[in-house]
């Protein structure tokens, strides 16, 4: 207690000027927080979120087909629980494996709290509330099971686990869009959070290989490759995303033979991909520049071919250095999906606009925008946290090589 007081005095009241500033800031903060709390608890009318929660989640996805999304969510949750548990069962070389480290206990507590509070706050029906509880239980249960048993699994099985994710992505595409015996749901009916996450993940997955190739091209010794990459990167980076998106909607139809042009949603997703690739290339290029030339020379003198040296020596180091910048790009890509609403697609912000155009919910801007802001903030902050954890896991200084 005494040390806390001393710290407070040192931090807030070290000099008279500091004291005045602290008191003024504290007063301002109290006023602002009080006003915000009073508004959120008394004045705000959160019915607009409750009544439209399905719309915000999936847009106009047909209700009788929504079981597919539930199935996909439970598959994703299951895979997440499995991977999480296995990560804990096979800890970093320098750490003893704790089944439940402190961060995990906090995370599980938060998840359980959210799973109970959110469906209740959204006023979902009992059946759907129960589904959310089931999903949370599935996640935590699988996490527990994999954490307990994962260490004794045969290594061959463990090698197959990362393959679950790409398989799941393809399965998810089929489940969402239909085909292969499942009824089709046209992309124009996708919306809300579903469309936001789908377009962001599609662009992130595809821009990564494209960006690495462009970065390699830009650093190539062959003038043609270098100039082609430079022109592509600079032209994309020179224009605002909204002009590219708008152009994409208008010009895809002209660039491809009649009838081959993709749906509006896919046009936007491709534009996002091409856009993000140019920025990602710059992030990767900075990573490539950080790898000393001696590394390539050493690899070559060991008899590795140029391609092998790149694959086994240069790229792993470069990508590790570039990781924070790359995740930064992914975060801004997730934020950039809001621009889809400006070309008439119904992602989160687009759905918000249609909801607020409804006379019943006129003037509920503050509630809707604040909810979206919290949602985006959580997604982006989670990505940032994940990136920092991955950085620590990949840092050669903390993980001795085996």
């Amino acid at each position, binding site marked *: 207690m005494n040390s806390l007081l001393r710290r407070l005095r040192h*931090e*807030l009241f*070290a*000099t008279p000027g*500091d004291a005045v*500033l*602290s008191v003024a*800031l*504290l007063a301002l*903060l109290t006023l602002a927080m009080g006003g915000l709390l009073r508004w959120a608890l008394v004045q705000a009318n959160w019915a607009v979120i409750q009544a439209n929660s399905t719309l915000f989640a999936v847009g106009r996805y047909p209700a009788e087909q929504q079981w597919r999304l539930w199935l996909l969510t439970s598959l994703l949750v299951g895979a997440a629980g499995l991977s999480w548990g296995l990560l804990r069962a096979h800890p970093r070389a320098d750490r003893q494996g704790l089944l439940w480290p402190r961060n995990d206990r906090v995370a599980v507590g938060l998840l359980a709290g959210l799973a109970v509070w959110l469906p209740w706050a959204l006023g979902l029906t009992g059946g759907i509330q129960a589904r959310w509880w089931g999903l949370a239980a599935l996640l935590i249960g699988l996490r527990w099971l994999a954490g307990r048993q994962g260490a004794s699994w045969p290594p061959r099985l463990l090698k197959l686990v990362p393959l679950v994710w790409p398989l799941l992505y393809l399965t998810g595409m089929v489940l969402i869009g239909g085909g292969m015996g499942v009824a089709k749901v046209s992309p124009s009916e996708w919306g809300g959070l579903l469309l936001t996450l789908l377009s962001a993940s599609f662009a992130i997955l595809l821009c990564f290989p494209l960006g690495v190739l462009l970065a390699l091209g830009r650093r190539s*010794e*062959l*003038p*043609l*490759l270098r100039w*082609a990459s430079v022109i592509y990167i600079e*032209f994309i*980076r*020179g*224009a*605002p*995303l*909204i*002009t590219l998106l*708008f*152009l994409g909607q*208008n*010009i895809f*139809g*002209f*660039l*491809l*033979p*009649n009838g081959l042009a993709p749906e509006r949603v896919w046009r936007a997703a491709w534009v996002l991909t091409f856009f993000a690739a140019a920025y990602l290339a710059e992030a990767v290029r900075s990573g490539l520049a950080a790898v000393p030339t001696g590394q390539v020379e050493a690899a070559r003198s060991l008899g590795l071919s140029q391609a092998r040296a790149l694959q086994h020596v240069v790229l792993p180091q470069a990508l590790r250095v570039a990781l924070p910048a790359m995740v930064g790009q992914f*975060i801004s890509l997730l*934020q*950039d999906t*809001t*621009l889809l*609403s*400006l070309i008439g697609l119904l992602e989160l*912000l687009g759905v918000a606009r249609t909801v607020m155009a409804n006379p019943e919910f006129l003037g509920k*801007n*503050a509630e809707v*925008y*604040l909810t*979206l*802001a919290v949602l*985006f*903030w959580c997604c*982006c*902050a989670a990505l*940032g946290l994940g990136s920092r954890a991955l950085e620590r896991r990949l840092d050669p200084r903390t993980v001795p090589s085996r």
Partner: protein
Amino acid sequence: MPPSSSSKLSPPLPPTGDTPPPWWRDRRVVPWLVQAAVGLVVLLVIAFLLGNLVRNLSAAGLLLTWRWLSQPAGFDLAESIVPFDAGMPYWRGLLAGLANTLRAVVGGLVGATVLGTLAGMAAFSSNGLLRGLARVYVEVVRNIPLLLQLVFWYFVVFLTLPNGAAAFQLPGIVLAKSGLYVAGLAEGLRWQGPHLLNGVWQAPVRLSVEFAALLTGLIIYSGAFIAEVVRGGIAAVPKGQWEAASSLGLRWFTTLRRVVLPQALRVILPGLNTQYISLAKNSSLAVAVGFSDLYSVAETTLNQTGRAVEVYLILLGVYLSLDLLISALMNGLNQLVQIRER
């Protein structure tokens, strides 16, 4: 050791001088082969796309031409500092949009630089509360999409302001739903503050709420990124500089202004360049708050004329030149602050 096992251990020797490698593996030829292959693929793709473009555009009667630029636009702009009305040609409309864009970019640059520098400096304050606030500001703003912030400022803050006598009033500044009114020089070179005339505010300088919302959003968003750049730059200055300055008896602010910031500037300027360029590009989101910037005029033009390729070429040209202009200015500035070797 039997010869068979030795040949297993060591790889076969490369052929010596008398048998040269085949020409397609010659080190002088391979780069050209690779480039020729890549060039061929790129050319084929471009030819395919361009061929389709020309065929489809000519089928739609939209082959590249600039004559439409001098036809009357037929739309009005809510505000513009270059005179413009519906009877004027498209190019005048685009020019008015460009003027509006420049206005937003310059205002945003100045505001975001001031805010970002202050927030970046606050991260090194001796006051823990101020440090924490600077941190919270950066973390909150960077993780929320700019477009969401812009519509928030416009629809939630600026469009719910009171009008008339109930408006927010500070000496020389009035903030109302009808706009932001600032004191200035009126006709006849006399100083005039905002005043009510028949329930409507009047002032020499009036900014529309659209412009004010755009500017607020841009300044607060870019300010957070600039704060990070400034913080990184200050952190790059060795700690000994702070200690030396304070042992000479300099105060915190004087140390920062006279000793640390001049050195940090060399690290800050390149990062600032990036942020300025993205601010210039982000100004195109003005279309979401109904401000007639270049992009929003171009969108209207495209919708009316269908000239996708030409309009896009104009947009690309203008934004690229804007980026290059900012880069050139910042590079010049960067040369000024570099250490001169003597």
